[in-house]
């Protein structure tokens, strides 16, 4: 889902552009450092491959078909930094040449798909290890990248004031889930055929990790993205809190104060949980 120009409100696109610029610069430097200068043609061709992959249809049954999105596949084969660079290049070319996604909204699209989407796809692959959970982690990574990118895009639209009925948000969530499962199955198929042809092309995964961590990570990312989606259309908890508490005169000061208090609260809770978990483990 590529957001075109004119959909996002100025604070949203400006903030996301500002976030995307240093992130892309950092990722580009990291990807360049990873290999030598043969990296540029390689990443360019991988981008062309993702474009071309959309021309190969995958039958799903009952006459419908889907195609590969590719963010997770790139992360599994090139590593997360290089995959982000390729996705950024794809988004740029799509915005300029194919009118798919806007230029001012490019920052938003980059954050959704090239940065967060790629990371969400890579996380399960990294945690899943090489054991019996490998296939599940490949599937989960590819699905997560689609769900997370879709949820982020939709919540940015909702925050920007695009009106949407509650039921429609639920329907689009269902659409995201279906296309996520499809992406997972396709990516798994492609990875398995790559394993047969040329296993060296895939990133090494660590020998063994616990599946519990994998499940917790997948569930956390899934919950967070769906939560962001629903939070973006509900009245903000912090805003509600500020309406009830504190003097009314210092508007921004009061909001900043409650925001910081909320952050401190969340930090405290996370710290407490972390302590308990580590104590239990050491016993």
């Amino acid at each position: 889902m590529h957001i075109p120009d004119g959909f996002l409100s100025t604070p949203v696109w400006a903030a996301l552009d500002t976030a995307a610029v240093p992130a892309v610069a950092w990722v580009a430097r990291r990807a360049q450092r990873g290999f030598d200068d043969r990296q540029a043609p390689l990443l360019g061709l991988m981008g062309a491959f993702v474009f071309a992959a959309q021309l190969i249809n995958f039958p799903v049954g009952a006459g419908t078909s889907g195609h590969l999105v590719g963010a997770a596949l790139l992360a599994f084969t090139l590593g997360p930094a290089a995959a982000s660079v390729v996705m950024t290049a794809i988004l740029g070319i799509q915005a300029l040449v194919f009118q798919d996604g806007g230029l001012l909204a490019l920052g938003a699209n980059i954050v959704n798909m090239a940065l967060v989407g790629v990371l969400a796809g890579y996380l399960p692959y990294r945690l899943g290890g090489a054991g019996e959970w490998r296939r599940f982690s490949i599937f989960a990574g590819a699905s997560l990248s689609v769900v997370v990118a879709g949820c982020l895009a939709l919540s940015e639209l909702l925050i920007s004031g695009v009106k949407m009925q509650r039921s429609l948000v639920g329907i689009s969530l269902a659409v995201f889930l279906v296309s996520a499962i499809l992406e997972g199955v396709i990516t798994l198929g492609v990875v398995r055929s790559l394993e047969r042809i040329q296993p060296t092309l895939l990133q090494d995964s660590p020998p063994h990790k616990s599946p519990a961590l994998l499940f917790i990570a997948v569930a956390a990312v899934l919950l967070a993205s769906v939560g962001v989606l629903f939070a973006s259309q509900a009245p903000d908890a912090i805003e509600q809190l500020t309406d009830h508490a504190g003097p009314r005169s210092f508007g921004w000061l009061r909001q900043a104060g409650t925001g910081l208090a909320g952050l401190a609260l969340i930090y405290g809770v996370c710290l407490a949980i972390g302590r308990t978990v580590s104590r239990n483990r050491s016993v």
Partner: protein
Amino acid sequence: MRHVVLERWSRGESCVHRRDPRAKIVALITFLAVVATAHRALAWLAPGLLLLLLAGLVLAKLPLTGALVRAALVVPFTGVFALICWFAGEPALGLRLLAKSYLSALAVIWVVATTPLPALLNGFEMTGVPRFLLMVCQFLYRYLFVISEEAQHMSKAAAARGTAARNWTAPGPSFRAAAGALGVLFARSYARAEDIHRAMLARGFDGRFLQLHSEHFRPADTVFALVASLAPVAVRLTVERVVG
């Protein structure tokens, strides 16, 4: 393929084609920002900006209907959201989204259709986008059509062997065939990238693309950048003063 049209247009000859890519990028960003931040009197502002873009298209000697139809590529996505807004009881918001995204797409087409993409990417490099990222974009665009044709050949070959006929009943085998085809395409693209790199090294590649003509920011470019970026601002200020 559809996109080759833009490529052909960008090799044309007009006073807009001759301008420095950086001047056009500045003008484009200003136009997009003017459209994106507009919220008052859009019913008058949108036709005004459309007239401005049409004047730009005429000045660049681009086919008017062709450009207008191409910009309509955004309509399927935008239209769905416009309809959703309509059903949510805000038809004005839906129309606004439609108008804004169409104008923005047309502005991007105006720049991309008057600047060959390699030159445009070079222009972006001089505005501070990481060179590595732009090199990846250059390679992506150069090999996009090569790899796409390879993919089309593969799916045609698969169809010739009868995969399409079985889609309805048992998708399994043809699904596996498609996954295998993508795996092969991936490995082939990877190998091709290595060949390309070796060929580049053999020709003395030292980490940057050479340009046949040097980029000079001429006084005419400065004037163009000023006029082209002040025009939408002027249109918006006039409309908001007269109507709002």
